[in-house]
């Protein structure tokens, strides 16, 4: 009996710890989001009253995020970059998944580790190395041929490539996990029922992978959207949102409009994450 109570007490303590942890997780986000509604020029206490100005007001000094051209432009670039990155990384991730789960080739283990490596290289270094590499090629070309290859200069393309370089590892792992659960007999069954190889791919294998591809795409999108370290070095004049916000914070001065953006992103990413989890869960019930 005594033991029972002790157990119960411990479980309660455990639950409280878990609760405290989730409060810890939520606190800064709640703080960042809440101040979006503070009717003040500074994102700080005291509370000056509730307002939606930081979202919708269209005049300085309380220019709302939906009227702030630079933030909107940042959002737009982030969106373009994230879309490109997720498309590209899901495509390559899918190829990789097939490569590593379906094929045998020499030094496969080594290549597998190479595939993992980008995930553990510090983002700053990824950014730098790509910047240095591409710039030196571009400089070389300029010096020898006098041709300026603008796409090899910091800008959207390099940002996309930089993010792609490590996000692909994530998408690959997500898709591999799914493909490993695929019963190869299913493809043989389809062949056996008269389908051509292409048809098998389109009607059996890819539909089976689709939830993982969507989930991987969402993950890639979100990771790209929030990436800072790699992007920092590769960005040109088209700054995505995180860079814009950082510049704003460090170089201009933050108003609660940054909180408004944060609020917007927290809610948006939360929804996307929810979708990706639902998709993942949906298929696990099979």
């Amino acid at each position: 009996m005594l033991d029972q109570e002790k157990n119960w007490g411990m479980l309660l303590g455990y639950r409280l710890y878990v609760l405290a942890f989730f409060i810890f997780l939520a606190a800064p986000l709640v703080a960042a989001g809440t101040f979006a509604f503070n009717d003040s020029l500074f994102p700080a206490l005291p509370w000056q009253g509730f307002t939606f100005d930081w979202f919708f007001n269209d005049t300085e000094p309380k220019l709302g995020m939906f009227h702030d051209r630079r933030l909107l432009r940042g959002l737009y670039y982030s969106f373009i970059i994230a879309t490109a990155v997720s498309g590209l990384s899901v495509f390559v991730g899918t190829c990789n998944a097939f490569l590593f789960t379906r094929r045998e080739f020499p030094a496969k283990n080594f290549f597998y580790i190479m595939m993992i490596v980008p995930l553990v290289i510090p983002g700053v270094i990824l950014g730098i190395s790509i910047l240095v590499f591409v710039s030196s090629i571009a400089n070389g070309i300029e010096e020898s041929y006098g041709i300026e290859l603008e796409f090899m200069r910091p800008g959207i393309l390099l940002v996309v490539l930089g993010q792609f370089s490590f996000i692909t590892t994530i998408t690959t792992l997500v898709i591999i996990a799914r493909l490993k659960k695929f019963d190869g007999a299913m493809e043989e069954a389809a062949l056996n029922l008269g389908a051509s190889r292409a048809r098998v791919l389109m009607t059996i294998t890819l539909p089976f992978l689709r939830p993982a591809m969507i989930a991987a795409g969402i993950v890639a999108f979100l990771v790209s959207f929030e990436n800072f370290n790699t992007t920092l070095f590769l960005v040109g004049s088209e700054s995505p949102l995180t860079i814009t916000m950082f510049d704003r914070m460090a170089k201009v001065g933050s108003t609660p409009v940054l909180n408004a953006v944060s609020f917007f992103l927290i809610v948006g990413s939360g929804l996307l994450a929810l979708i990706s989890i639902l998709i993942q869960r949906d298929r696990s019930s099979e």
Partner: protein
Amino acid sequence: MTSKPDFDLECSNVSKTFGPVRAVDDVSFEIPSGSFFSILGPSGCGKTTLMRMIAGFENPTAGDIRIKGMSVLGTPPNRRNVKMVFQHLALFPMMNVYENIAYGLRCAGAGKAEIATKVKDVLERIALPDVGEREIHQLSGGQKQRIAIARCMVLDPDVLLLDEPLGALDLKLREAMKIELKLLQHQFNTTFVYITHDQSEALVMSDHVAVMNSGRFEQIGTPQQLYHKPASAFVAGFVGDANRWNGRVAEARDGRARVETSAGLTLTCTPGSGQTFRPGDAVEIFVRPEFIRTSARNGQDAANDGAGDDGLEGIVDSLLFNGANSRALVRPPQGEPIEADITLTGGPEDIRPGETVRLSWSPDQALCFAVGTAPR
């Protein structure tokens, strides 16, 4: 055109090697149209490999495979009219039942209306008329089984291959499906080739069974032939239960042999088909538990023995009550315990552990084979 072939499926001298492994070794057989043919063998003996060659997923290293008389060696799997039920069924989880069955028809380019009719038809034939709209995960194990068969049968295959389709089911369901499969085969009247390592499945369902061991066919025959007239020690040991002794021939005459077992017993046996012995040959003797009569010693003594019956005494080690299939483990003076089928009614006449009993059997039922192929 050639005359109508007599056999739906013929394999001649088919072999398959994977590197050093000889998975299938010079296998030949033919299957008459409309029959239920099983391939029975222990795990790893090459059954699946053989079936995959028939379906076209592997190319034979040597030999020829003919379907309806035509060689299919160059034909890719999706063009062979041989359909297959996979061990784990491989139903498509992203499609419902209707779409699963329609899949093959769609691949063949059938029209919408035709597909609808055929699917409806086949669902009725497997007695599941209303499950078309169900998702696969909403089906029970037995229903899935039938859908997997329907998915193949709707394409009207020349041969249906089944690779241990009952392996994943639970005990009671497996029993029920055995009978059901046989009925379905009757109904569709298509040639079934059924793979299993469970001898009772093979015996119960098949018209003909091939016993396979290490890539080779040891014997092809009806279930009765395999059971009662095994062609090799392996078949004798693998099909049905049997007590087994190793020994050396002491004397051989009149189609009988006297054998000294390594444990020291002397037994009389009948050489298996095609076997002849000379004294000194190493042999293995097989006696099925159901051919052994068990009698309490204090009873009529050896009176129960037939003329020339072999018999020995032993102490009952334990009783394995299993209703109609009960069995006694009897420890003879020398060697391993002997299994004998008995009937336990729960009455006072039942034998009990610790009793001394007399076991006897007819030498006709004691088959012996030269030691060669090591049975499992």
